[in-house]
Structure formats: C-alpha cells, structure tokens
C-alpha cells in the first residue's frame, strides 16, 4: 500500500512536470506560428500600399507627360520600375524596386518645381499629396514589418526556441530592405 501511495505521489509530480514541459513546448511552437503570422500580416499590409502606389503611377505619368517634355527619361524609368516591381519576388527584391520608385517619385516632384503650370494642376497636386502620404505609410509599415521579422528571427535563433524552430522548419525571414548590390544595379539600369 505504501509503495502504491509513493508511486501515485511520484507519478503525480512527474505528470505535473511533464504537463508543464509539454505546455511549454506547445507555447513555444504557437509563439513561433503567431510571429510568422505577424510577418505575413505585416507583409500583406505593405503589399496593399505598394499596389495602390503602383496603380497611381500611370495616372501620374499621364498627368505630367504633357508638361515635362524634357524629362522623358524619368518618366520612362518610373514606368519601367512599375513593371519590374509587379514581377518582384520576395521582400528584398520588392524593397529594391520600391526604393527605386520612391527615388524616381522624389525626382519627379523635385523637377516639377521647374514647371509652374504643372504645379498649378489640381490633379497633379492631388496625386502628389496621395503619393507622399503613401510613402510615409510605406515607411511606417516597413518599420513595423522589419520589427516583426526581427522578433521572429531572434526567437528562432535563441535557445530553446531554436530547437523547435529546427524541428518544424521555421526558416529565417527576409527584411524589407534593399540589398546594396541590387540597389546599385537598379540605379545603373535606370540612369542609363
């Protein structure tokens, strides 16, 4: 009888410890899933803005082309970038093209200062305002996305989460950040 009682008590404590361990492993796994979902959601939130911005580019080109006759290259560049961003794969490639579009937009808005008639065009002003607001939002969401990626990448590399991450193939996520070499390549291509 004493042996049985001892067995039950030790068994109880052992089961308690085991339950805690199982719970911990589940929570690590669920935490990683939730972090990965955060990244997907953050990416979707950037993607929607990038698409909206891409949709506005033809309107902008259409509006400015009548005025900026001597800046054809900038307009050709931005149209080409619009096409390339639509085919971009993954956050890093998208970021490279997105940054190039941002730079091209900045150039268009800077050059527009030379054209008073364009500056007075209501449609252009509205587009400029919309695009500037989108640029700010993209910058914020990019920061949010990169924070989400940093949290996830840190967790999958920290012990003991890294063990669960390796077991269930949680791989590192890409930051929404242009690779320097790609950035240079895009600039060279657009410049000449």
């Amino acid at each position: 009888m004493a042996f049985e009682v001892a067995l039950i008590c030790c068994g109880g404590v052992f089961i308690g410890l085991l339950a805690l361990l199982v719970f911990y492993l589940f929570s690590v796994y669920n935490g990683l899933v939730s972090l990965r979902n955060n990244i997907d959601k953050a990416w979707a939130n950037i993607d929607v803005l990038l698409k909206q911005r891409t949709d506005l580019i033809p309107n902008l080109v259409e509006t400015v082309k009548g005025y900026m006759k001597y800046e054809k290259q900038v307009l050709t560049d931005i149209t080409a970038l619009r096409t390339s961003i639509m085919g971009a794969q993954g956050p890093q490639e998208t970021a490279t093209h997105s940054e190039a579009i941002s730079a091209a937009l900045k150039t268009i808005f800077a050059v527009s200062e030379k054209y008073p008639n364009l500056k007075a065009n209501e449609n252009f002003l509205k587009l400029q305002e919309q695009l500037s607001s989108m640029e700010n939002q993209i910058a914020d969401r990019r920061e949010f996305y990169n924070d989400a990626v940093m949290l996830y990448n840190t967790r999958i590399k920290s012990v003991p989460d890294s063990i669960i991450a390796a077991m269930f193939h949680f791989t590192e996520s890409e930051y929404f950040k242009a690779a320097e070499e790609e950035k240079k390549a895009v600039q060279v291509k657009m410049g000449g």
Partner: protein
Amino acid sequence: MYLLAAISTSDMAYAEAFYGLFQLFFCLVGLVLMYLGVSSYLWARKIENIPTSKIRSIAVGLVEVKGTPRPAGTFINPISKKSCAYYNIVISYLPGTSTGTRWVELFNESSPGKFYLEDDTGRILVQSESKNMGVMPRTEFEEEGKLSPEVIGFLNSRPETKKGLEAARGKRILVTEYCLDGSTELYVLGTAGQLEGASSEVHSENLVIRRGSSDKTFFMSGKSEKDSIRNSSLYAMVFMAVGFFIFALGAFFAFVTGLAIESLSLLSRGS
C-alpha cells in the same frame, strides 16, 4: 496534531477522508497558481510578440500603440477643473464603527471612455473601458465635517447625491479624482477597426481601437512595454514556482500521511 486526534479516535476512515481533502486542497491551490502563472507567461509573450505600430499607418486588426492621451471633446474634471482625456470621480464616506470601517461609495462619475491617443505621426480614437482606467494618476483628499466649496458646488450640481449625503453627514468623506491627461504616456493593445460614420482623409482618424469581437484583448498601461513584460514574466515565474511547490507539497503530504495511516492500521491490526 490533527493526525494524533484522528488516531486517538481510531477512526481511520475519518482520518483518510480528512487528509484526502487536505491534500486535494493543496493540489488544487497549486494547480490554480500554476494556471495563473501560465496565463501570465502567455500574456507576456503576447505583448512581446506584437510590434508597435505608428498611428499614421496603423492597420486593421490587433495592434499595439504608444502615445499621449488627448481629450476627444471637452472634458473638464468638475472638481479640480483640470482638462482630462478621461476622468473619474469617486466620493465615498466612512460609516460608523458599528457598520464597519470600509469606505462606502456615495457617488461615481466618469467622462465618456473615448479619447485620442497621439504619437509623432498622428492620432487615433481609443474606446476604453472603466476597468482599464487603473492607469490614471489619482488625487485623493479627505474632508471631515465641513466640505470644501468645490465639492459642495459639484454635489449641488448632482441632485441624485442628496439622499446619500444625508447618510454621510458628519462622517469622513473621501474624494478621489482620476484624471488621464497628457502627462501619462500610454501603452494600448487592442483591435483597430473601422469607426462608424467616419470619413476623414486621414487614414488613422477613420479607425478606433477597442476590444475586438474575435480577439477580446484590450489592455492599457501607464507602464512601458518592457516593464509590463518584465512584471508579467515575474508573476508567471513566481506563480508557477509557488504553484508547483504547493502541488508537490500536497503530493508529499499524501505520501507521508498514506504511510502513517497504513502503519497505524497495521499496528492496530497487530494489537
């Protein structure tokens, strides 16, 4: 002591039942504490896992934002006349010793729970709930016998307090003012959703942060995110450790008393 008492009555069944309940109680308390620890742990992880959004570009869904509260209207705290994003006034009195020494609430008034949260990029409406308002700084003052003109003026403007004031006449009165103002840096975790009827050109002004319908999370704190995570993690560790200790203690008692009861029953059979 109880064991000896139980032995002296030679009622083993009674002793077994008594100690069974005693151990069960220990184990249950241990389990409840462990559950609280687990909840705190999950909560800390939840806060940790959500990055902070900038208000300007906030997306619909579960969000975490930090900022300064601003009034969504004109809310002047009626006693101190301070402008607050949210206020709550509680007036209580201390009844006579025969009825106890606990403060009895006489009056409780709050401004509507909506206020703006502002960061360096924009502002968003927050629909809070009174139970989240523990983060507000509070001012307390006690009044005995003669009430100050500010409090009298305020109570006169609220005729419903007349009856309660009769009961509180000559007693100690405690006036507590809570005021959420711009000096409190707030951390808010909740669901951002469409604000009914809003059609602003500014994206964030068409949204409201509140308790979501699917994710019921809503949390507000005057502490920083780091402190909230550290506190929850600490609670989690303490609850889990103490809970497990109590649970193990219950199991140990079961073991020891089981042995004792069995030895006694063997002894009684032998004699």
